[in-house]
């Protein structure tokens, strides 16, 4: 089913500047796979060598971290919004 995906600012160059795209899938993993197939340059930013999301990438489904649900296996329903959220952190030491 089609799901809305919120694209964060630093990744918008890879979606033609769009802040929101749609992709289809029954789970978070399937939707991410469809997104990367549509916009391959996103893959290098989002996914590690193992094909799983990088640790600096958070995925929020309707405002809730998918890690607190079933992670990449979280099932999606019509009307869901998946947000890609870059981890923002750092520090002097």
């Amino acid at each position, binding site marked *: 089913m089609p799901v809305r995906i919120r694209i964060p*600012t*630093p990744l918008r160059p890879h979606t033609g500047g769009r802040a929101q795209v749609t992709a289809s899938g029954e789970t978070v993993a399937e939707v991410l796979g469809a997104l990367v197939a549509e916009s391959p340059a996103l893959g290098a930013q989002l996914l590690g060598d193992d094909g799983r999301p990088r640790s*600096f990438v958070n995925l929020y489904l309707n405002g809730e971290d998918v890690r607190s649900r079933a992670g990449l296996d979280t099932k999606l329903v019509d009307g869901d919004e998946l947000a890609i*959220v870059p981890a*923002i*952190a*750092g*520090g*002097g030491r």
Partner: protein
Amino acid sequence: MSERETPAVRLVQAAHDAIRREAARAYPHEGCGALLGRAGQINETLALANQEQGSPRTRFTVSPADYLATETAADARGLSLLGFWHSHPDHPARPSETDRAYAWPGLLTLVIAVERGAPGELTAWDVPASDAPFRRLDLTIAPD
């Protein structure tokens, strides 16, 4: 440094003042905030809570909820989320390895040194590619 021409960043005076003020207020913890504007000019900054629980004097963390709220607010106002600033209490305004690990191409990193509570040097950086080192940018303070 790249031999190619590096982009310059303009920071309006009011936003510059706000960063210095918030960095001093947060001391001895690291302060942080979002940078909003258009096309290489930072027009305003939004102070954000440093959500780092373990070592807030040497680390900062922006919560995903704050990130989403900031970006949503920027989009709604026709502004771009250009990047984030953070302070280095009693440490130079140079990005650390930790800063590099979290840096995203397409987002600016501004770092301000705070020496014994007093805001000091402010520097601007970006990473031209996901595997590239930080590149220092020319930072100009512009009239409001």
